[in-house]
């Protein structure tokens, strides 16, 4: 009896990796999916936090893809290891803080490790030549295969006919004729193939599901590193950059002000880790203070918090401040007027 050939497929939750996986399953290969969580694949996070989005149905696209294809999915936490990829990318960043090429090398390397540990034979990705400006170019795709160590065990079914032969093709595990020669940023061939396979309701996120491709998010991350004087972060930092208004009056502190009830509830979970405050005399938002503020800075922070409460037009607002030990104190402040918060303070 011949050995069952097995492939591990990098499932992002988007259409391309779904099609690539299906194409190989159609050739009788046993496929299981792998999905890496870097901390920045946070497409559902805002949705989960903000109250106004609560009624919309939400799904994890990689799980949906795996269930639609009928394959197992292994979700791997790579938050800690990913820090080095983001902080020291050998190939640099894209348009924002996205280290796409280093990221892909790292993920394929991790997939190779998984493949070897689980006695699988090759790796599939949904990459297409010319699809992305950094990691999916004719000159960078060989770098991924080489630097990850996957070499010819890395198969890109959607554009394989435009690439050199890989081991699965040479060994006859799969037929090259039944692979594809897609190129470029156009989506028509993928949509036609999705139609052929009967896939509907698939996800096509612009720029993928990575927040590092987002300009506003990247600016907040850079601000965090600059203020701390070091390129480092924890998962809580990554999460908090998604929540609230971030206002930095000075390098030594910033204020994170909840924009609505869902965000306020989420920030409640961080009250033990940050100095925090809210209006006591009027309804108003919860805010965290990140950094090392002086008493004078806390006064400014309180004026900002008062600005976003119902006492914004009052002469004086009482603000409750809780320090890191949980001690509470109140101060009276005059809320800052809209034009008293310089634009540069908004991160």
């Amino acid at each position: 009896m011949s050995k069952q050939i097995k492939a591990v497929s990098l499932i992002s939750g988007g259409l391309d990796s779904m099609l690539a996986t299906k194409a190989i399953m159609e050739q009788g290969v046993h496929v299981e999916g792998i999905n890496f969580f870097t901390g920045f694949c946070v497409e559902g996070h805002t949705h989960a936090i903000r109250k106004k989005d609560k009624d919309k149905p939400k799904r994890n696209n990689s799980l949906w893809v795996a269930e639609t294809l009928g394959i197992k999915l292994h979700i791997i936490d790579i938050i800690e290891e990913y820090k080095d990829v983001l902080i020291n990318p050998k190939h640099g960043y894209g348009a924002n803080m996205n280290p796409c090429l280093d990221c892909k090398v790292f993920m394929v390397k991790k997939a190779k490790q998984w493949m070897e540990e689980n006695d699988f034979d090759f790796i599939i990705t949904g990459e297409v030549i010319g699809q992305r400006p950094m990691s999916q170019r004719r000159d960078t795709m060989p770098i991924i295969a080489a630097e990850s160590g996957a070499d010819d065990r890395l198969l890109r079914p959607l554009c394989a006919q435009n690439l050199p032969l890989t081991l699965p093709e040479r060994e006859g595990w799969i037929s090259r004729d039944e692979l594809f020669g897609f190129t470029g940023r156009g989506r028509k061939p993928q949509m036609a193939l999705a139609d052929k396979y009967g896939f509907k309701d698939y996800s096509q996120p612009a720029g993928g599901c990575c927040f590092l491709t987002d300009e506003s998010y990247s600016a907040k991350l850079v601000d965090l590193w600059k203020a701390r004087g070091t390129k480092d972060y924890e998962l809580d930092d990554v999460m908090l950059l998604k929540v609230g208004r971030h206002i930095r009056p000075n390098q030594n502190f910033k204020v994170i002000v909840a924009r609505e009830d869902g965000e306020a509830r989420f920030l409640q979970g961080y009250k033990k880790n940050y100095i925090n405050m809210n209006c006591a005399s009027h309804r108003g938002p919860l805010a965290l203070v990140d950094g090392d503020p002086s008493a004078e800075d806390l006064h400014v922070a309180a004026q900002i918090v008062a600005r976003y409460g119902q006492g914004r037009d009052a002469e004086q607002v009482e603000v409750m401040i809780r320090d890191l030990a949980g001690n509470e104190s109140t101060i009276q402040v005059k809320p800052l007027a809209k034009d008293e918060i310089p634009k540069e303070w908004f991160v």
Partner: protein
Amino acid sequence: MSQYELDAKRLLCPLPVIRTQDKIKQLQQGDVLTVTCTDPGVLQDIPAWCRINGHKVLETKSDEYEFIIILEVGE
């Protein structure tokens, strides 16, 4: 069969799924795991993950702020 609990509060998806996946690796078939979360996304994601990987969701409960999923470990 033993009963286990997992606190996945404050974690946003897919972390509750990952923590559930990692916890189940330590359990035996037939064990029952109760996962408590605050991200409503788990009501879709953990059952989906269970269906894919052969585990059975016995019950889901939720109030405004917490979402509880009770599952039985499969093969």
